[in-house]
């Protein structure tokens, strides 16, 4: 099957073109030997031919300094084991033509047939330019298709160009190649070329020269590339050293050579109509103003955050009621039984567990799509770069980090706005420490538990809540900083951000992107969450205890009979309450004997140094489903029933009077604090792990996340509890 690779600079609409060619039906795989995601799709061309379409990482140049960056060359050139592409479709930002042509020249040098997708021609007006596609086509000698990829304009012409080139590849292979003229450089290229593995160039002299130039601009002493033979490394390093000794500047010779070619043609291709970007300049004077720019950005972020935090709430509530309504309907239609329980509490609740994330995911991606589409996202990176860089993060990491206050799941998906995998991973790993909204009910319950139930929460309690927010944020920043210095060091990337002209958002493509992200989440992370939910159901529902069930039935039956014949409403009400209390008591006993309850018992020795007893252990185990489940589990364990929240008086009273076997109180202020610290740091969220698995492409990163967060939580809770005891607190 012929292979078509999509290449291009970052932010040139590469993935839009990819999605449109493949109809969005892409398989997500990893590059061989390295866990960088790549999309592979298939499409049927007019005439019935089936082709494979590969995405490649966005880059300004094929030259690479790390194994990650090397993938662009491997995908475009088709180095083994990847297939040599029949066509490279290069997306090009028409408003930034000369820089984009640098990559086009490199790919033409390789001898791969090229089609240029001249994208964003609708922004030329705003940029004050005019581009003549015929002139570009003539200069390059390859087909040029003017496009506005985000609304599909030019797509059918791109498809017919692909068909034509597959029929006759010579249409997309210009007779010329850019070649260095300096005989010394040519000799060096031959020397390096001779050291290249034959499998790379297949004895094609043009391909060999192009790969030799790539090696000269990529291999440095102490490089981070993979699969570079020692012979090649020596040839490049020796050759560069000799040239430097003679006072030559190889980098400049090669890069200047390409740009000189571009500069000699560009004025025939691009015309300036007026002074560029007047509107953009005026808008930027406000949006990038040293003071006002920040204020406006923070105001916008407040709005986004507010929408995520409170705006999504009613919809989330609606989804939750719908899920429990469906559960009830199914439950009463099927009647009680193990299968019903599994269907209602395992499957339906499990589906609800991930559908509930959708409102926030859709909202966040709507805002991000808007910011990217209008060109504001580039400004965000500029505004936040210094601040974020001081802790090792990318300027664009600000939006995901902030979204982490609402929920880590959409926030982790939002790391995709960053181009580099290292930046994405770093943000992803630190982000779940931000105080998400699921921690709130837990903090609420524990803060309330500090004061006796007969007292109102006061000022100190509010301060404690604010401190927990601050603590989570600081820990996230510290973890990001530490990881950026150690595990995810990554090479220094110069900050060069393109500033596209502002434009009106294209609503259909914003909505399409938003829906695609939502669907993506449901399909991959959703499946994992569903499976985890069913696992949690098993832990909490087994083993069954027939004796306990029989006893419940036996004690409930007379009360129900009495309630059925009770004459006064008061009497009826009283009996109903007794039934509910009986059921709650039985549920409590049942949970204690379930696998989750036994797990709570089993981990008691581990958590006792933190001040936690086995009941808290059960809560911690069940909170792995989602942090807020801790509150309802406490309700069940303490026999209050599962419909509780942090304000429920019964639950607060039970917590207050709960004691260790020796009569000491369990929920002392120090234990509550230790437990809050534990919840601030521990990775108590299967959905976060599922979405990290989805975004990082393997289980290694979520496993590391779980381990480091749990370890951090244990150590900090230990220090707080034991330190507190030493200082005489209780």
């Amino acid at each position: 099957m012929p292979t078509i690779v999509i290449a291009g600079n970052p932010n040139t609409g590469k993935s839009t073109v990819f999605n449109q060619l493949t109809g969005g039906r892409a398989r997500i795989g990893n590059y061989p030997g390295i866990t960088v995601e790549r999309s592979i799709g298939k499409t049927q061309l007019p005439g019935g031919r089936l082709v494979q379409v590969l995405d490649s990482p966005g880059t300004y140049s094929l030259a690479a300094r790390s194994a990650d960056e090397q993938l662009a060359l491997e995908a475009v050139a088709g180095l083994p084991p990847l297939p040599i592409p029949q066509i490279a479709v290069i997306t090009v930002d028409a408003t930034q033509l000369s820089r984009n042509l640098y990559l086009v020249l490199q790919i033409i040098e390789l001898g791969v047939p090229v089609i240029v997708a001249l994208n964003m021609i609708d922004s030329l007006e705003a940029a004050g330019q005019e581009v003549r596609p015929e002139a570009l086509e003539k200069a390059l000698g390859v087909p040029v298709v003017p496009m506005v990829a985000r609304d599909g304009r030019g797509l059918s012409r791109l498809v017919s160009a692909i068909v034509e080139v597959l029929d006759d590849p010579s249409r997309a292979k210009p007779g010329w190649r850019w070649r260095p003229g300096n005989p010394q450089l040519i000799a060096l290229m031959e020397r390096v070329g001779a050291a290249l593995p034959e499998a790379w160039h297949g004895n094609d002299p043009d391909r060999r020269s192009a790969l030799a130039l790539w090696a000269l601009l990529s291999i440095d002493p102490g490089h981070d590339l993979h699969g570079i033979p020692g012979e090649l490394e020596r040839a490049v390093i020796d050759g560069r050293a000799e040239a430097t000794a003679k006072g030559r500047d190889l980098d400049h010779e090669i890069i200047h050579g390409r740009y000189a070619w571009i500069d000699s043609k560009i004025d025939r291709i691009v015309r300036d109509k007026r002074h560029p970007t007047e509107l953009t300049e005026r808008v930027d004077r406000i949006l990038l103003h040293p003071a006002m720019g920040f204020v406006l950005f923070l105001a916008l972020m407040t709005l986004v955050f507010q929408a995520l935090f409170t705006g999504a709430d009613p919809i989330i509530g609606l989804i939750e009621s719908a899920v429990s309504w469906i559960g009830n309907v199914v439950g009463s239609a099927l009647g009680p039984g193990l299968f019903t329980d599994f269907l209602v509490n395992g499957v339906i609740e499990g589906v609800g567990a991930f559908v509930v994330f959708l409102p926030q995911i859709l909202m966040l991606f709507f805002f991000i799509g808007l910011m990217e589409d209008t060109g504001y996202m580039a400004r965000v990176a500029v505004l936040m770069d210094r601040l974020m860089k001081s802790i090792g993060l990318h300027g664009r990491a600000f939006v995901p980090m902030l979204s982490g206050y609402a929920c880590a799941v959409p926030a982790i998906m939002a790391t995709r706005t960053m181009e580099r995998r290292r930046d994405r991973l770093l943000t992803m790993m630190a982000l779940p420490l931000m105080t998400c909204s699921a921690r709130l009910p837990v903090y609420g319950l524990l803060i309330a538990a500090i004061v006796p139930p007969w007292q109102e929460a006061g000022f100190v309690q509010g301060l404690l809540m604010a401190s927990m927010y601050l603590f989570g944020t600081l820990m996230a920043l510290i973890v990001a900083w530490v990881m950026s210095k150690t595990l995810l060091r990554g090479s220094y990337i110069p900050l060069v951000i393109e500033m596209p002209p502002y434009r009106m958002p294209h609503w259909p493509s914003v909505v399409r992107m938003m829906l695609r992200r939502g669907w993506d989440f449901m399909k991959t992370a959703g499946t994992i969450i569903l499976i985890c939910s069913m696992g949690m159901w098993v832990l909490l529902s087994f083993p069954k205890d027939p004796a306990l069930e029989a006893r419940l039935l036996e004690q409930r039956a007379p009360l129900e009979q009495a309630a059925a014949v009770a004459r006064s409403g008061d009497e009826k009400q009283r009996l109903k309450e007794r039934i509910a209390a009986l059921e709650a008591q039985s549920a409590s006993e049942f949970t204690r004997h379930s696998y989750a309850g036994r797990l709570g018992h089993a981990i008691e020795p581990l958590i006792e140094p933190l001040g936690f007893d086995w009941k808290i252990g059960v809560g911690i185990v069940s909170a792995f489903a989602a942090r807020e489940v801790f509150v309802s589990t406490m309700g069940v364990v303490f026999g209050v029933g599962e419909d509780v929240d942090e304000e429920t008086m019964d639950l607060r009273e039970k917590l207050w009077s709960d004691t260790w076997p020796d009569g000491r109180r369990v929920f002392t202020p120090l234990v509550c604090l230790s437990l809050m610290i534990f919840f601030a740091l521990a990775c108590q969220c299967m959905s976060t792990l599922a979405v990290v698995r989805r975004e990082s492409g393997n289980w290694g990163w979520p496993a590391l996340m779980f381990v480091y967060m749990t370890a951090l939580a244990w150590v900090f809770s230990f220090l707080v509890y034991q330190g507190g005891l030493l200082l005489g607190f209780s």
Partner: protein
Amino acid sequence: MTSLDSLEEGAQARLMAVDGLPALRRRLMEMGLLPGTPLRLIRRMSLGGVVELEVRRSRVSIGHGEAAQLLVAPL
């Protein structure tokens, strides 16, 4: 000759030399910041730590650290 970092807002200049470690230098040149290239400084944002340029008909923002590596002759 002066470093790009010290240009006035709105000033035009020609890039004369690119300093810095080989990998950084190469990256800047590959993005079109080559000796001989004319440019205009649009704005300097001290809080963001960024300098915005107009170069080769497009606008780019570069960090202060990078800007310090670019030597220019004001036009």
